[in-house]
């Protein structure tokens, strides 16, 4: 790949005019509120903001001295890894098989795409329904085959539940990308590998999978961000962080403390920590991506 110098147009004002709408929206609806959130993290205030006190790092101190907050890091790590790992693994599996089947691929794709259209709030309800202790088909099914399903008190079960629901919601998206990625691998590479004597299994691991790595990496970033940020709706609808705090991931705590419990200072401090964490993570990932991606 040669270094492509982008051909550009010349204008002093036009680029700014073009940037303006997005710039304005981002400034007004992102940076301004985000700045305020940052400010809030250094304040303690009552819910209605009538009395406000600058407390410096107090909110952070309280947070970091709370063992349950640290616990929540661990829960988040486990959850994110499971969601990203399973989400990617399963969708890759489906994509690999769908890629093999040329003829019915379209049918399968259409059917697998469904969950993508379901709102997280609705997804939570669906899973709540399926796992409802009383009328939940899945809960009943499991107990009928001897697995005493109890996501209310069994942490592992609860984690399974939120992971399943979160993975379910994300699987279509991953699947679409993987399938697209697989289909863009030149057929002759596969054929070369066949002639080299590689069986399907070997071919997958030594050819297809490495060649998918840009897609995989992109999806890894997306999935981790998803697991970090977009899953609180599902958790709220299913386990509410329980049993104990065993499914309370960081963003659920931010959401709960800020949105439900109206503890704005602490919630803001948590968002700041979360944001620093994710920006750091993404920065690392992007450094890595830049190095790896361009075959």
């Amino acid at each position, binding site marked *: 790949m040669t270094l492509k110098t982008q051909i550009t147009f010349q204008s002093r004002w036009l680029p700014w005019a073009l940037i303006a709408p997005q710039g304005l929206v981002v400034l007004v609806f992102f940076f301004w509120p985000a700045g305020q959130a940052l400010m809030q993290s250094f304040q*303690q*205030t*009552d*819910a*209605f*903001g*009538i*009395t406000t*006190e600058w407390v410096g790092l107090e909110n952070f101190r*309280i947070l970091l001295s*709370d063992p*349950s907050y640290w616990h929540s890091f661990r829960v988040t790590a486990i959850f994110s890894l499971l969601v990203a790992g399973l989400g990617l693994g399963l969708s890759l599996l489906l994509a690999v098989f769908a890629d093999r089947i040329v003829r019915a691929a379209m049918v399968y794709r259409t059917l697998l795409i469904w969950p993508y259209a379901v709102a997280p709030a609705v997804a939570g309800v669906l899973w709540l329904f399926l796992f*409802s*202790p*009383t*009328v939940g088909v899945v809960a009943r099914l499991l107990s009928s085959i001897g697995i005493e399903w109890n996501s*209310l*008190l*069994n*942490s592992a079960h609860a984690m399974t539940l939120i992971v399943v629901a979160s993975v379910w919601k994300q699987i279509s998206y991953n699947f679409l990308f993987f399938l697209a990625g697989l289909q863009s691998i030149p057929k002759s590479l596969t054929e070369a590998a066949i002639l080299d004597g590689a069986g399907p299994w070997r071919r997958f691991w030594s050819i297809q999978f490495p060649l998918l790595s840009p897609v995989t990496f992109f999806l890894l970033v997306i999935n981790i961000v998803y697991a970090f940020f977009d899953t609180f709706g599902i958790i709220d609808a299913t386990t*509410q*962080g*329980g*049993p*104990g*705090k065993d499914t309370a991931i960081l963003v659920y705590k931010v959401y*709960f*403390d800020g*949105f*439900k*419990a*109206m*503890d704005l200072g602490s919630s803001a401090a948590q968002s700041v920590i979360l944001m620093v964490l994710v920006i750091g993570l993404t920065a690392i990932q992007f450094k890595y991506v830049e190095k790896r991606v361009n075959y």
Partner: protein
Amino acid sequence: STEIVWWHSMQGALGDWVNDIAEDFNKSQNEYVVRPVFKGTYDEAMTSAIAAFRAGQAPHILQVFEVGTATMMASKGVAVPVSQVMTEAGYTFDPGAYIPAVSGYYTAPSGEMMSFPFNSSTTVTWFNLDALEKAGVPTDNLPTTWPQIRAAAQKLKDSGHACPMTTAWQGWTQLESFSTWHNTELATQGNGMNGPNARLVVNSPLHVRHIDNLADMSKNGLFVYKGRGSAPSASFESGECAISFNSSAAYAGIAKNAKFKFAVSPLPYYPDVEGAPQNTVIGGASLWVMSGKDDQDYKGVGTFFNYLSDPQVQSNNHKRTGYLPVTLESFKLTEDSGFYKDNPGTDVSVNQMIRKTTDKSRGIRLGNYVQIRAIEDEELEQVWAGKKTAKQALDAITERGNVLLERFDAAANR
């Protein structure tokens, strides 16, 4: 005509109820129009209101769950006391007309009644009579004490009932209401009713004993944990669990979905505890009048509240939803209508609240209450899961809750 905006959290059939009330009121006069707006669950509505208030866009009336009461009271200047609104609108407002536990709960230390009790509930025990009968528990003499409950649960279990007993709202029923029912403090300062400097004392021997008891029942399969909040309701409605501690307002759902005979009773108590049974705590929500509106608006709010205070209206609400008839008069009216005879047990909730409250039983009003409830859920789940003893869990609730209370206290004193 003046428009009165009312933010509420009534979902499902209760949403219809709210709309009907507004419609009836709007028809009853033509000076004011009440416009109910659903704003999500209680906590979502409150967050909305907070955001709106900060932006000067608050509604006239906000429905706040009891858990948010302390926050509302501590935020000075956010709400206009309901007594003031009523008086200024030219209506007489008599807190004494209300059931003591209700008026007491929404009255500030200053003696002013802050919010309008709209949909108050309390904790009761629900029995599946068919199941009890099948298990050989006499249904004409339902258990009233914990030992009796335990015995009944044992019989249910022996008769093959997989879930003899469960509880909804575990913090509310098994810690908060349990405390006032036994005339025992859950938190100092009259459970926070006297000011924001309250601290939890929920690790008292009585609390430990009770939670121990439940833990033991749980271990023996007599008590089955069915989740947080109202989630366990469904397990009673479906017949899966035979005894359930839940809100009195669970009535509507049970009446509609249960395919069995059921009865409602007061919460059980430990007979050896002095002062038990006292009275249970209030739940549900009340209506708060937000500050910063025109006099004309407040007049409208007052008129609307006056309408809501009508005993006939209150009685109708009570019958329709299972929420308490919050005034004694409406209770009488309901009784006279023969409703309690036709629907035995529906008066239980009122009866257990109607007593004169003590300093320890007026209600629970704690700051950062939502988080404290979450802590209660978290810690109790550890007990049911066998990961913590009752003592450990209750100590943890006390300790973790007090950190939050201290912060609330500090903010309130600023």
